[in-house]
């Protein structure tokens, strides 16, 4: 490797927050590196079906932003690459990154999927919520960027079919991981979230009941390229007659160590319920909730249309879920609207409205402080919500706490502004330092420029 590549900004994570921050910075003329650990950019949003409150398809919003990043002259995208550490070196940051082997030459691959069709190995597809299948040689999903195949070495039998099928000799089975470094003046951490674990609560079946789903699995069932092409029960393919949502299944619960509200679960449950009543017109849909938190713009109106569509909202605390012989699920609920009276109801399918956990432990890798909730600490939450405890590292999206897509995208724009001003300040400071003799800085703004090294 010759010289260490230098950028104005390093954006960590290519979910919707990272994509937006990268585009906003690049549009201002800054050189941006965006590093994504998954084989495609797009993050969690690209796997969603439709999004509240407009019911636009998630792809319709995400894929154009992905495409804009991919072809922006000021953005360099590194996928399947992990940031190992970020450290300060003088007036900039140095990131050590690890590019994992795809076993496919990115330059040579034309995305024809011939290797995928040739591959005889089928395994569980994480992208499809572990409900569908993919091959060991694969392109992660139809709208992935880059449209470059990769080979899952843990499941590869080394049969060589992909090598023989590839029309451009792009398969490189002896590729190795590569650790390298890049430099950037500012960093935007857009490291996202992960779901609270589905098995956390033994009284909800501990993750062992087949027809108790994660909300992201239901997103895949509702999505156009979903694993089954329609909504059916994963246990046996039955078209469900009744579907229930258990709200706050992973949030507002001290016993799980997640005392906060995850902000999105009420709305995604309502949205999924509305989509379900479209795809399963005769099914009964029930949402068991403590408080409906429809607080965003147009959300209360959305909630009301769900009520008008006949979705049943039951104020109650779900105490237990049990699997029946016919693989339906019995929900035992304490009705908070009826003195806590206990009621039991059967549903074909139950979705746990799980909450959000930080996607990444930023303490070890980036030396950022986190708050009690585990998310990146923002010491100036009211007037500078994207600042972190390290000057020059900014945070965008769910890395600093649960957030919906609208709030995430807005915050990514704010993080881009912070990073942009910081980079300009550093560039100006460097110029001032080199031209120190002729400096005549009297403006009050320049007086307050602080350069921390």
């Amino acid at each position: 490797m010759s010289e260490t590549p230098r950028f104005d900004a390093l954006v960590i994570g290519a979910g919707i927050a990272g994509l937006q921050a990268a585009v906003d910075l690049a549009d201002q003329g800054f050189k941006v590196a965006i590093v994504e650990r998954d084989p495609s950019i797009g993050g969690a949003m690209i796997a969603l079906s439709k999004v509240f409150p407009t019911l636009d398809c998630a792809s319709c919003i995400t894929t154009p932003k992905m495409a804009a990043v991919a072809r922006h002259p000021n953005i360099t995208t590194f996928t399947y690459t992990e940031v190992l550490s970020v450290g300060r070196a003088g007036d900039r940051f140095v990131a050590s990154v690890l590019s994992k082997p795809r076993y496919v030459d990115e330059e040579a691959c034309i995305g024809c999927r011939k290797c995928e069709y040739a591959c005889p190995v089928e395994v569980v597809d994480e992208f499809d919520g572990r409900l569908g299948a993919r091959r060991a040689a694969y392109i992660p999903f139809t709208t992935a960027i880059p449209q470059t195949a990769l080979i899952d070495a843990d499941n590869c039998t080394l049969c060589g079919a992909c090598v023989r099928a590839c029309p451009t000799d792009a398969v490189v089975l002896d590729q190795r991981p590569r650790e390298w470094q890049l430099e950037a003046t500012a960093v935007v951490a857009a490291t996202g979230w992960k779901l609270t674990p589905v098995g956390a609560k033994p009284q909800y079946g501990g993750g062992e009941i087949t027809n108790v789903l994660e909300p992201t699995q239901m997103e895949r069932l509702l999505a156009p390229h979903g694993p089954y092409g329609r909504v059916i029960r994963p246990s046996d393919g039955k078209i469900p007659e009744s579907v229930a949502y258990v709200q706050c299944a992973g949030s507002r619960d001290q016993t799980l160590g997640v005392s906060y509200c995850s902000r999105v679960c009420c709305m995604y449950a309502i949205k999924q319920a509305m989509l379900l009543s479209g795809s399963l017109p005769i099914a009964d849909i029930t949402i068991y909730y403590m408080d409906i938190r429809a607080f965003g713009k147009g959300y209360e109106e959305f909630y009301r249309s769900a009520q008008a569509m006949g979705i049943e909202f039951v104020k109650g605390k779900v105490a237990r879920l049990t699997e029946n012989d016919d693989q339906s699920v019995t929900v035992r609920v304490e009705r908070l609207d009826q003195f806590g009276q206990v009621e039991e109801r059967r549903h074909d399918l139950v979705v746990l409205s799980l909450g959000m956990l930080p996607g990444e432990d930023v303490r070890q890798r980036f030396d950022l402080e986190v708050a009690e909730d585990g998310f990146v600490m923002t010491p100036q939450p009211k007037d500078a919500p994207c600042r972190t405890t390290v000057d020059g590292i900014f945070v965008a999206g769910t890395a600093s706490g649960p957030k919906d897509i609208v709030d995430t995208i807005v915050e990514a724009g704010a993080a881009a502004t912070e990073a942009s001003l910081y980079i300009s300040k550093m560039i100006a400071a460097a110029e001032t330092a080199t031209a120190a003799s002729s400096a005549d800085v009297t403006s009050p703004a320049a007086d307050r420029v602080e350069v921390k090294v």
Partner: protein
Amino acid sequence: MAEDAAPKIGVYVCHCGGNISDIADPETVARFASGLPGVAVARTNMFMCSDPGQKLIADDIQAGLVDRVVVAACSPKLHELTFRSVLQRNGLNPYLYEHANIREQVSWATSDHAEATAKSESIVAAAVAKAGRLQPLDPIVVETTPCAAVLGAGVAGLRAARDLAQAGIEVALVEKTAALGGNVAKLDRLFPNQESAGELIGRLVDEVLHDERITLYTLASIDRAEGYVGNFTLHLRQKAGGVVVDRAARLNGRTIGAYRPFEGFMIGDHGAAEEGQNGDDERAVVIEAGALVVATGFEHYTPTKGEYGYERLPQVVTLPDFIELMAGVEPGSRLEHDGRPIKSVGFIHCVGSRQVEGVNKPQADGEINEYCSRVCCTATLAAICDLQEKCPGVAVYDFYQDIRAYGRGHEEYYEKASKGGAVFVRFAGAEPPAVAKAPAGDPCLVTVRCKDGLTWGEEVEAGVDLLVLAVGMTPSDVSTLVDSLKLPVGTDRFLLEVHPKLRPVELAVNGVLVAGASQGPKDVTEATATASAAAAKAMTLLSSGRIELDPFVATVDSQRCEGHGLCVEECAYPGALVLTEENGATRAIVNAALCTGCGACVAVCPTNAIDVAGWTLGQYEAMVDALLAEPQEVTP
């Protein structure tokens, strides 16, 4: 069109991931399109806007198969620009593109599969007919004024002004009152970190006042606004006593002020800024700006007379009133209001928010406030915690619908208030609590009665000495700006962004950005985040000094124009169309930057001398002919 060979039109029909294909059949539409005159290829894709979808089009252009493109997909609002740039990147003029909307206009509007497919075919046929008559166009390039105007100096406006100035952009910051800080100045401590509102505002004001790129106008309101992206003109009226803090004022005076709790940061207070101070007269100020950031904020909802006893019973106050009252209470001291000791306080949520048709009185425009005001739940809980801390003996009753303590650190207030002994009563929006004066002899002053949703709808009654109404947010009156720039407003009366996810801080009028609660209820964190996001957009807009506008403007055929001037009379955009003398003859000419391409002039021209580029009469006729053509028999 004589010089052109026959057009080679590519038609690309999008499934939109089921949004379209669940109702209309893209494959049938594509087959139909392939039989239309001039169509060279017709293809389909699950997501035409995705990279693989765009590549289909790019490959056809590169292969020379196609020189005009029709995409049948969602609304052009979403992705017309996406597809135009595909043409541009592949060496075609971007205006040789026509967008057919078969989602909003077809699949979302009908459920009949056969009809939807047939209607999609008609719309595609019309688009193809127009595409065959498209001409290459060049965007209109205009110079931009290297200055941004920020309207409103609440926290959002202050933050936006500071960001823009630090990016090197000249900023005019316009505030209608005498104070900076907006509604946040009417608070004491802010959730979730209990930071003092005064300190927060002081920090922002300090940066704004010391940045010489910012010119501040106080007591200034907007009379009129005009112009277009890159070149807006704002006509302000500054009241007597209004201050201008500009470079000159900064040099001459010590332009400081002071923060007054519950009023805001008063500029030019203590006679320190006489240099910039306006005299006794109102005066007019004109500001030129390349971009506008509207940060005009909100007003607290004012309950109608008698709503929950407001203005009928002296013991009924709003949450901002209560916060101000509590700010003056020393810990451990006795709580008093109106000269009486307070032993119990009731709080009612959702006052002016989450209203129900037929239950709540409509607003002036006849609409109810259906929306949630987002901050009142946590603000109320924070006020309860403050009360419990300072006056531990006081009983608290909280009447709510749903507790929406959604944000970071919000839930903690709920827990604390519950642990502190607050009694929560849940009401339904359709049956709000009834408030009455307590009967004589009753120990309390006010009674609140309501069906409790937590106890099977049991009727509960609480006597309280003070009743606090958690009033929601309503947008500030920005009607002059809205009317003169034709800004879009939602059914909730707040400013309406282009799209909540694609362009969340931009209004449909190019160059006008929105920040803070003028767009909808927001807390301080969210307001400053939108302000910085809006600043990012303005920075991009103004960075190059020039801007490209769509060329869809009126063009006058000077051979045909006879100078009747009807078009000038009809034109609603001052300066867009004028009559001039040309070689002794009167002719209409168009100022392309001011013309919006509305077409009103086209309709009134007696000699058919005017057309709108990209939307010519010839193109319309071709579209109408295609729409009215007999449906063709398509063999599968």
